[in-house]
């Protein structure tokens, strides 16, 4: 790995410098578009006291659900607990601090963080628990809540294809939070399905330019577990 060559060849190398008590963003919506191998590596390393920023926390025993098992997360920032029993239990018992954040506000906090915007006003959550303790302002007759942006020590994301310079393309709805998180991590690590030489991806179709990406690793394998397998007859 040197200069503009972002490719690393092991998960250890991909997560070099990752330690206890860090703030980490993890891409994905449910189990769709999550960096499976990077999540597994953090689980193996056993780092704890983490502040994890992710829309969901996986399911019991998979994705971020594994970090929950080992109690690696001290604060979770996300929008949906859903069907994750352990998450709900840790939340209700107060064992883990959970900052539930509206999904669009979460996405925008990350986008803003990566774009150098420290905070923004949004109507989302005004008059609800989400606005408690936050500055509000009436602008042109409508009430808004001031939401601070988010950045992280590490952003662990999943993309479909990368080139060696870290330019990324995502696949379908596996894109979700990954592009914004790429911009908001001090060190962004992209786990991808395929790495090609620089120049092989059409610059017209790059979703995330390589400037945001510090390390790229080709995933060993992707289980791509499906949460709700629905088919038509």
């Amino acid at each position, binding site marked *: 790995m040197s200069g503009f060559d972002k490719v690393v060849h092991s998960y250890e190398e991909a997560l070099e410098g990752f330690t206890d008590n860090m703030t980490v963003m993890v891409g994905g919506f449910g189990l769709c578009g999550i960096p499976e191998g990077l999540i597994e590596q953090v689980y193996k390393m056993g780092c704890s006291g983490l502040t994890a920023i992710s829309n969901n926390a996986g399911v019991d025993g998979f994705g971020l659900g594994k970090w929950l098992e080992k109690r690696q997360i001290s604060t979770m920032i996300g929008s949906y*607990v859903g069907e994750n029993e352990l998450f709900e239990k840790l939340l*209700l018992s107060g064992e883990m601090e959970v900052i539930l954040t509206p999904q669009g506000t979460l996405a925008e906090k990350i986008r803003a963080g990566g774009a150098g915007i420290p905070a923004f006003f949004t109507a989302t959550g005004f008059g609800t628990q989400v606005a408690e303790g936050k500055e509000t302002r009436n602008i042109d007759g409508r009430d808004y809540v001031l939401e601070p942006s988010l950045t992280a020590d590490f952003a662990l994301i999943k993309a479909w294809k990368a080139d060696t310079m870290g330019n990324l393309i995502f696949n*379908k*709805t596996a894109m*979700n939070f990954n592009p914004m998180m790429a911009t908001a991590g001090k060190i962004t690590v992209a786990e991808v399905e395929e790495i090609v030489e620089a120049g092989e991806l059409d610059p017209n179709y790059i979703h995330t330019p390589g400037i945001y990406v510090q390390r790229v690793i080709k995933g060993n394998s992707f289980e791509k577990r*499906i949460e709700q*397998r629905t088919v*038509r007859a």
Partner: protein
Amino acid sequence: MALTREQIAMRVAQELEDGFYVNLGIGIPTLVANYIPEGVKVMLQSENGLLGMGQFPTEETIDPDLINAGKQTVTAVTGAAFFSSAESFAMIRGGHVDLTVLGAFEVDQEGNIASWMIPGKLVKGMGGAMDLVAGAENIIVTMTHANKHGVSKILKKCTLPLTGAQCIKRVITELALMEIKDGAFHLIERAPGVSVEEIQEKTEADLVVPDDVPEMKF
């Protein structure tokens, strides 16, 4: 007769207009997609990053990278687009979605809605619901009129933590279509065979009843 879940969805579907971009929530709202009127073309927005959601895939075409906001495997229709969560909520927050349909635990006569948690019992998280109710001008809430013990969920004031304040204007239940204005529910239509008295009995909120309340037509 009180409406079935499917009939509630059918009644909502009558509100769809050709060319609408529509976001359907989880549960009864999802069923609306099954009753899109003939000659009406809509594009379904799924807030995880899909505009142009299609039907469920076949076993052969199932793709774990293509899901809806309910995490169900889906397909994309001709003319669909994929995008990030930030882009998705720019569409929602920016008022670009023509109609939003979502469920609720409670709605009150000030237009407040509670749908995301029951303290001490159930925490699902708000997901995108707070953004949806804050961003959309045109929202229809589908819900049951009362709980299984007969306790009204159409209230003077919501008792559960709010999803949004003063943002709901239309509610369709198994008994009635109501509008919220000037601090009260207004009865617009009733389910076929359901009496005004039954609706009044199951409504805790102030309910304005006009002289003539037509039955819903299917």
